[in-house]
């Protein structure tokens, strides 16, 4: 990958950081939690695909490695959430 590509990816990351910091000052209700996490996910995606070269990997294993760990992580989240939500009769 060329220096130019890396530079533009970095520029994108900086712009996304600026966006998420400016959004933090606004009253967005429940989006106040979802939006920053979506932006963080997008930034991670950029780093994984370009800086960590997952985009240009040929082998299948490198393509599935992140979805696989995310799936495991999701199971952890669901198990923990269902435990916390149903404890002591649920809601807080």
């Amino acid at each position, binding site marked *: *990958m*060329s*220096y130019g590509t*890396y*530079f533009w*990816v*970095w520029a994108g*990351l*900086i712009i996304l*950081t600026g966006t*998420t*910091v400016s*959004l*933090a000052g606004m009253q967005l209700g429940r989006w*106040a*939690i979802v939006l*920053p*996490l979506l*932006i*963080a996910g997008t*930034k*991670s995606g950029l*780093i*994984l695909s*370009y*800086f*960590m070269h997952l985009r240009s990997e040929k*082998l299948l*294993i*490198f393509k599935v*490695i992140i979805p*696989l*760990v995310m799936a*495991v*992580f999701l199971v*952890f*989240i669901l198990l*923990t*959430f269902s435990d*916390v939500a149903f404890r002591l009769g649920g809601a*807080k």
Partner: protein
Amino acid sequence: MDEHKDYTGSKLGMWLFLLSEILLFGGLFILYSMYRYKHPVDFHLAAWELSRPLGTLNTLILLTSSLTMAFSIASLRRGDYRISKLFIIATIFLGFLFLGIKTIEWGAKIEHGIYPNSPRLLGRSKGEILFFGLYYSMTGLHALHILVGLLVLSIMFFLMIRGRINKDHCVPLENSGLYWHLVDIVWIFLFPLFYLIT
């Protein structure tokens, strides 16, 4: 006799290690979410006390260090060893800068009497105690990863000086780069959770 080198194998091994790192921090992120769900108001109040400018500055520093890391690997692959070494030094410098700012940030909090088990903190509500406990342990574990990264990058720098890493054998630097970028990704999530979402 030629030394046996398995490029794909070492990269795959590095990725497996990174996956275990994702789950290590992932567990802490789940812990954070559960406590936030139980104590939304306390977390809201406590998050206001962290310095958003310092957190943002550290995000920009770490993102830039990822760029210099990628540049260093790209120039190593082209055989521009001098440039590659310069970019590694830049990455190490930015890593230290990050730790320096982190120290200032922690120092200010500790000076205000807010650190784990401090009398001042224990006098506050349960959610706030949990927030600062998570703040210190999660950013602390992350800072420890930066410290290890700096050590690894310094070793890579010496191996490059000795010519042990070159354009025909760049996998050690590439794997170090993968680690450095992952530590950056962890910070990308820590930053909104502690400094932005209030």
